[in-house]
């Protein structure tokens, strides 16, 4: 009798479990009905709110859902390389061209640009405020050994920061603990910088939408070397047969079309434009 009772209860438990599955299945089925593509992109495009503004317009026009995995540029390219996304939408030109040259992607196009800004504490111990020379500003910060937070995560912003240190002819890691690599995304790195009143290189989009600014403000901007170009690449279908080439191309073509470019230009936070479309030429 007891064994019978145990079995009966076990079956009931299994049925309850199946009910949970059943409740999970329709949601899964719903999402697969619509054609979708996966885009590996950067935290700056996602967290600035650009995709929330842009993607519904594309989905309404074409019926194609766009699923964004937002990570650092280095990781986004890796996801594309492994074939886990259909499109890569990032900001590190030389790494993108390398990605195409190695055959992981095809047909890179410029999409838009914005710029990096050097953010720091309002007290500005290195006295760089108002300068338009990012390289001299970094030299001043290093000279004062003022705290500087680095992304340290192989992202597009991290690569841009390292290029600036190279131009400054400095090795920030050589001189003590004022240079702090956090190995984290733009937002977490900004949280860290706000917490320790440190200088940090940020992309303007994330900075504008970032809420926990503490005592930080933009100190240096407008240097040509702070230019930040975004590009879009189709993951190579010849390498990964499951890449949804038709839908992915539809998305890329729309983003660089006059309509998509106008949609990018119209995205603003508090009246300020975040990204400037410039998809005139096919690169690489």
């Amino acid at each position: 009798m007891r064994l019978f009772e145990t079995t009966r209860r076990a079956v009931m438990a299994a049925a309850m479990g199946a009910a949970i599955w059943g409740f999970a299945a329709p949601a899964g089925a719903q999402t697969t009905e619509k054609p979708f593509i996966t885009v590996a992109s950067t935290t700056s495009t996602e967290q600035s709110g650009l995709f929330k503004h842009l993607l519904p317009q594309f989905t309404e026009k074409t019926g194609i859902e766009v699923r964004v995995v937002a990570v650092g540029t280095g990781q986004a390219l890796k996801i594309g390389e492994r074939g886990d996304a259909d499109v890569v939408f990032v900001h590190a030109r030389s790494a993108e061209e390398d990605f195409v040259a190695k055959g992981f992607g095809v047909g890179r196009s410029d999409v838009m640009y914005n710029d990096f800004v050097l953010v720091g504490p309002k007290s500005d111990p290195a006295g760089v405020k108002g300068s338009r020379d990012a390289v001299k500003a970094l030299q001043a910060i290093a000279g004062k050994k003022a705290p500087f937070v680095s992304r340290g995560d192989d992202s597009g912003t991290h690569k841009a920061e390292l290029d600036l240190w190279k131009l400054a002819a400095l090795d920030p890691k050589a001189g003590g603990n004022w240079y702090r690599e956090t190995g984290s995304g733009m937002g977490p790195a900004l949280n860290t910088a706000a917490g320790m009143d440190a200088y940090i290189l940020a992309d303007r989009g994330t900075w504008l939408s970032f809420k926990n600014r503490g005592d930080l403000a933009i100190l240096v901007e407008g240097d040509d070397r702070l230019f930040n170009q975004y590009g879009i690449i189709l993951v190579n279908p010849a390498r990964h047969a499951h890449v949804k080439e038709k839908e992915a191309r539809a998305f890329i073509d729309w983003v660089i079309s006059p309509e998509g470019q106008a949609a990018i230009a119209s995205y603003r936070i508090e009246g300020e434009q975040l990204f400037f479309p410039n998809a005139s030429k096919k690169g690489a």
Partner: protein
Amino acid sequence: MQGFDEALAAAWRLIVTGDTALVEIAALSLKVSLTAVFCAALIGLPLGAALALARFPGRGAVIVVINALMGLPPVVAGLLVYLLLSRAGPLGPYGLLFTPTAMVIAQTLLVTPIIAALTRQVVADLWTEYSEQLTSLGAGRLRAVPTLLWDARFSLVTAILAGLGRAMAEVGAILVVGGNIDGVTRTMTTAIALETSKGDLPLALGLGIVLLVIVLVINAAAHLFGATARRAAG
């Protein structure tokens, strides 16, 4: 504490307005974690009980490994599942990466050792108490597994709740294998991580409070259910 006031206000707003995005996110969190715990219980309960009763060479080593796996870092579990499910990995053709199913697999991997290890301990204790009685009834060691699991059911609920706690709270594994895709794989914990990244700390903490309330309700329900069942069992 200005931050906490804002967080509480944000949590209250989220709950009373029944924000549809929040409901979807909370529902996905529950779906993924409950499914993972269910799968983990299916594997972990019999595995734990069998480990308590069976005698075979290397048993001690297996127990140590399972106990150690209770401390498996979620990011590592996430990476293992990522490499398995990635298009370039052995299970790539199924296209499961960045889906809720991938998240269930990763969480099952995290929760199974917890349920198995705690079950083993509970059943081993019970066995020392009842072994003479059960063997005299002619039940072999392994055939005693269902009986012992049933007798230990009230203690095992705690093991399962411990597993559920781990699943509901973790963010490292599902962030890697789910991708935190808006409307597809965004859960309570990945949304909290995202809002923290955006510097919206009050909203992040507000979401955290909502998550705590959900977990509290589940535990209260389990407690009440257990108390009623215990009374019915006499």
